[in-house]
């Protein structure tokens, strides 16, 4: 400690105002009896109790939602044992057959569109090929693609 620090140290501090003694001791003994120990968790919320409290509340809500959703998932989960692989394949095949059957009933395969009379103007321009469900439209490319089919169709109609 050098001279400067020693000089600071020698500066005397103020005394406690004497009238405080009785007041503080009286207040301490009165207040002390009434004190209710604060719960330890209150200390965790320092120094921004409202902010930390709000954050804790949000976490509690999130946790609650999480637990509720897990219970919901558990309720929806099948209770019995899981089917074996063979059973799964069989079920899938059955399902596929049912689906095919249903789709064939609901949507019959498209038949050929009514074909204009071969003599009618532009009759060769539009033809729906029944097998491939292919529509030829009035474009150069379509005409080239569909020409053999149209020719065959016209022949079958004429004969």
């Amino acid at each position: 400690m050098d001279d400067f620090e020693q000089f600071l140290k020698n500066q005397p501090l103020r005394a406690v105002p004497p009238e405080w003694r009785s007041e503080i001791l009286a207040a301490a003994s009165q207040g002390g009896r009434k004190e209710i120990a604060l719960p330890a968790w209150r200390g965790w919320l320092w120094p921004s109790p409202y902010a930390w409290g709000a954050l804790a509340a949000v976490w509690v809500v999130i946790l609650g939602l999480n637990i509720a959703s897990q219970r919901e998932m558990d309720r929806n989960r099948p209770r019995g044992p899981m089917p074996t692989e063979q059973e799964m394949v069989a079920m899938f095949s059955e399902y596929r057959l049912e689906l095919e059957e249903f789709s064939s009933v609901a949507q019959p395969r498209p038949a050929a569109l009514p074909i204009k009379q071969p003599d009618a103007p532009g009759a060769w321009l539009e033809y729906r090929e029944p097998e491939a469900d292919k529509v030829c439209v009035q474009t150069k490319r379509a005409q080239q693609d569909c020409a053999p089919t149209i020719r065959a169709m016209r022949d079958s109609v004429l004969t």
Partner: protein
Amino acid sequence: MPVDLARLYDDHARALFGLALNVTRRDADARDVLQEVFRRLAARPELLAGVDNLRAFLLRLAHNQAIDLLRRRNTREKSAETAIEEQSAGHPFAASARADEEGFRRALAAALVELPPEQRAVVHLKLWEEATFEEIAGILDISPNTAASRYRYAIDKLRGRLRPLYNEIKDSWTTSNNS
């Protein structure tokens, strides 16, 4: 375990008041700190069970209470008025009949206000409580190295601020002693 509050007060109140006043810079706050410390001791005498260094323990209680009070005060009333009030009130030093000495004490009080509270507390404990850095570390819940470095920073600042006044007083005292 009954606690002799009056005896505790007589033995330690001055030290607790000095620290509280140096940290809070307000008489009213220092009084609140003192009252709260003694209220806690009255309410929970078991706090003193197993305490080796009673003075250090009480200083720690007072410091924690003063810091809590400062935080509450800063969030409540963060204004320029508070700073001005702090500089003018809560003078922690005894009055002196000598004008130059009184002037130095006021300048020292003003220079201490400019220090952060944590440095102020270290300076107070080191200079006016004559605590070692280990004891200061225990009271403020910091490491001894931190206590030492805070003390060095604070003393350098005080030296820079008060050196001219200090030299002037020292010279005048030397001259008066020689004559």
